[in-house]
């Protein structure tokens, strides 16, 4: 009877897992996806999973995408759960994105600038017409190549800073906080906020960033620069005493330039919103830089009244692994508490009806 049906057993779980495996594979007559195919042909999905999974490993991220049947939040969760078992060796030296080997670099604030505008592999100017030729498959002709210009590509914020127009960031050699080791606490300083945002959900950051453009938070943003490419990661092991390069990662960086009217201590100038994301993740890097700037409202003496300006609101809710877990836990049985609610509502109804009868 029903009583038995609502209680799950081990056999039910095993059977569900077996069904999941079968559903994941789909029609066995179709060739199975390889991790290489996912990594190569669904590269932006892999990038997003690395970013939100907070673990830079394309192969593992591709495996996670496959295991999660393309559910990218589930895939990020798989990667996080793996990441958490890895030892933490230390912090890298600050990456120099100014020395990036650039695949894409655009600025909206200057028509042209040293290093030039490099569109790179972008959807930006494609017409969003379903390409039926793609359905048939085939290899595209090779893209034309130009020789690198060899010119340095200074960051736009640096160009503004030369004129004193860009508020300088406080320098610090302190090891940044790590919210995977210490729980969030408030007020959260900027390195901690940026770490949380870098791991945060793209959709959430997009909506929060968008809200600042629509009047919830007083934003006047310009894309100073977006750049995407490869950057070296260096560490300085204490036993060596000098930095060594341990590898190269692909990142997307966005520097959002915002007007700042000045305060009692600061002259009018531009301030920075910063976004940095693993892989090619332009939408998220931009949204992150908008939210980062919004979260600086308090330190810049601006009014704090919009959701995107509230540290607690943004940082506690940007992590999609936490969010999806807690939202989805509602499908676990809650019948014990619901029974209490049933009795309570019956009691309250009885009181109402009794009083009405009197």
């Amino acid at each position, binding site marked *: 009877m029903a009583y038995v049906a609502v*209680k799950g057993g081990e056999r039910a779980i095993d059977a569900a897992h077996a069904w999941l495996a079968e559903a994941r594979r789909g029609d066995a007559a179709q060739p199975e996806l390889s991790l290489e195919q996912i990594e190569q042909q669904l590269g932006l999905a892999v990038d997003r999973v690395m970013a939100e999974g907070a673990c830079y490993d394309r192969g593992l991220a591709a495996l996670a995408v496959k295991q999660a049947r393309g559910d990218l939040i589930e895939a990020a969760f798989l990667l996080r759960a793996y990441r958490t078992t890895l030892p933490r060796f230390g912090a890298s030296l600050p990456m120099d994105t100014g020395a990036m080997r650039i695949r894409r670099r655009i600025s909206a604030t200057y028509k042209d600038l040293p290093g030039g505008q490099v569109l790179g592999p972008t959807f930006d100017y494609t017409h969003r017409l379903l390409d039926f030729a793609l359905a048939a498959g085939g290899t595209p002709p090779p893209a034309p190549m130009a020789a690198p210009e060899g010119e340095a590509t200074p960051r736009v914020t640096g160009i503004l800073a030369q004129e004193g127009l860009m508020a300088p960031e406080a320098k610090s050699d302190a090891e940044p906080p790590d919210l995977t080791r210490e*729980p969030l606490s408030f007020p959260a300083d900027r390195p901690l906020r940026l770490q949380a945002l870098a791991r945060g959900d793209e959709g959430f950051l997009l909506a929060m960033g968008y809200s600042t453009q629509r009047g919830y938070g007083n934003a006047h943003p310009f894309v100073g620069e977006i750049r995407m490419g490869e950057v070296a990661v260096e560490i300085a092991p204490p036993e060596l005493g000098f930095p060594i390069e341990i590898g190269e990662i692909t990142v997307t960086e966005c520097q959002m330039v915002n007007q700042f009217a000045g305060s009692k201590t600061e002259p009018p100038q531009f301030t920075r919103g910063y976004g940095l994301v693993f892989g090619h993740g332009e939408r998220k890097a931009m949204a992150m830089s908008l939210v980062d700037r919004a979260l600086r409202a308090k330190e810049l003496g601006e009014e704090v009244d919009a959701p995107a300006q509230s540290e607690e609101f943004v940082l506690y809710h940007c992590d999609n692994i936490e969010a999806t877990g*807690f939202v*989805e836990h509602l499908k*676990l049985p*809650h019948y*014990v508490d619901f029974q209490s609610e049933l009795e309570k509502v019956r009691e309250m109804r009885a009181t109402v009806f009794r009083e009405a009868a009197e």
Partner: protein
Amino acid sequence: MSTMRSAEGGAPLGGEHRSRESHGPTATRSAEGGAAPGGEHRSRESHGPTAMRSAEGGAALGGEQRSRASDGPTTIEAGYNFGYLDENTKRMIRRALLKAVAIPGHQVPFGSREMPLPYGWGTGGIQVTASVIGPQDRLKVIDQGADDTTNAVSIRRFFAKVAGVATTEHTAEATIIQTRHRIPEVKLREGQILVYQVPMPEPLFRLEPRVSETKRMHALADYGLMHVKLYEDIARHGHIAISYNYPVMVGGRYLMSPSPIPAFDNPKMHRMPALQLFGAGREKRIYAVPPYTSVHSLDFEDHPFQPIRANAACALCGARDSYLDEVVTDDQGGRMFVCSDTDYCNTRQGSREAAE
């Protein structure tokens, strides 16, 4: 059911302590005395699960390599430390637990780790259990009071996989009981640990969502907001309209969420001989109620606290003192009530049959 340990397997899992201090090879005892080429030595890094036991009590193998092997019910997952968490993480959590025990009811932030189960599924409770469990422990896991609910099965399997500990469904036999939403009906005793899974550790969160603000309120013991809420309930409904997750005052000092247990269970927390530990993984906080600590459900002199239960007897064991689940039997309004605590109910049914 849920035989993490098979009867043939006999002997409890070999491992003496697998701590950094005792790197020695781990003896694996088997009932049949099979060979145990068990412990390769464990390095500090890998703390690998040492003994894997076969159901026949035969060979046990030391797992060193990080592989996703064997799903068998009696083997420990290869490549993971005893209890899943690494020893440094356990130490960090134990420090938080000690602080929590020292300040009953006070929420201690801790570096909650991402677990292979989702947030909201008991990651806090699992981390607490993983930090206090030893090879000699006997673990019981319940959800909604029942041992056989899917999530309880899943968590019990997790610990069987990563710790290989003995499990039980009998409250009295368990040394650690991890629970979601209930306190067992049988009185717990000294030496037992009750680990609660906590979704929202902050009792004031519905009244004040800002953690920075609730922290201040706890520091000042400023709980007026909650008293006003309860007063408003009485003014509006004639009684307090909270039926579960009913706020309690611990040791006369800290307002605490008892986790979403029914208010019926609240009185069991008061001066309980067992240690009560609370883990909130997503919110990254731990708190505790040491043995024999006073736990008082908030109320007013003229409106004393009233636990709620369905006014019926269990249809299976006849209990009138236990918390009951309402089971809908048809679409004609038919329903029956049965004990939510499956072990309590089964034990009563067993002793009734024995008496007959």
